[in-house]
């Protein structure tokens, strides 16, 4: 953190207090994290993408579970209305600005990475951290293994 970084936790607490909520949301807190070394170089690795954006379909707009979508062809739009992004200063009409399928597909065709996984994963943002940790994360792990994924790039909006 630097002095100019936006303090989103404090900003969010203040925002919800102004709405009359009396209990602050408690963000997940860990002082340590596991670290897995790469087994193979990037040029031999398959990458998966995880996003918080949902598919721009009638199902994607309603689903509150992990949703799996083919990477190709890259989606022209994604459903982001429910997410908390800065709707005053920017927009999400350019999908590669938050879902890097095109960039990774290009890098795969240039041989910079082994391959892009055939499917990407949409993770619903959840009030319940248990739902994320106990339900959604294991599903994403299982599906990454099914796709023989070596590395994961996670891009929350």
């Amino acid at each position, binding site marked *: 953190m630097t002095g100019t970084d936006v303090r989103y936790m404090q900003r969010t607490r203040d925002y919800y207090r102004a*709405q009359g909520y009396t209990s602050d949301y408690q963000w997940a807190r860990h002082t340590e994290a596991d670290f897995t070394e790469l087994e193979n170089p990037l040029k031999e690795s398959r990458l998966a993408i995880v996003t918080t954006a949902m598919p721009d379909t009638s199902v994607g707009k309603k689903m509150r579970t992990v949703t799996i979508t083919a990477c190709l062809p890259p989606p022209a739009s994604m459903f982001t209305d429910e997410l908390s992004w*800065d709707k005053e200063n*920017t927009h999400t009409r350019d999908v590669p600005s938050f879902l890097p399928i095109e960039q990774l597909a290009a890098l795969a065709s240039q041989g910079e990475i082994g391959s892009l996984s055939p499917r990407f994963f949409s993770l619903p943002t959840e009030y319940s951290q248990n739902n994320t940790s106990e339900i959604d994360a294991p599903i994403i792990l299982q599906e990454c293994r099914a796709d023989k994924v070596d590395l994961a790039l996670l891009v929350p909006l």
Partner: protein
Amino acid sequence: MSLVARHLETNGIPTVVIGSAIDIVEYCGVARYLHSDFPLGNPCGKPYDKEMQRNIVNQALTLFERAREPGTTERTPYTWGDNDDWREAYARVDDSNRDQLKALGEERRRQQARIKEAGATRAPLISQ
């Protein structure tokens, strides 16, 4: 999202998170984090700026190989604009919207009660 990164990492899949909320990601603790100091919404680069989007993804990829320990944070070299005005916009609370937010909260609580009555067990973290 950071919780999923932690789970994958624990189970043998190296991860990089690209995001714009550095306080939340570092509070949760992840193995590798690339910070885009932009308004929330475009962590991979400004809309339609293909070169920037390519460079940010490239930096994230090389972070896989560069990071040597958990909790490694890097920043992209980019800034959003000529000034920092955007930093004040997200979830702003001031005299211009205080009454509106109070009314919004009341409506949200009614909505949440309806969702609960309907038996839903999953609700979005924040919906504006």
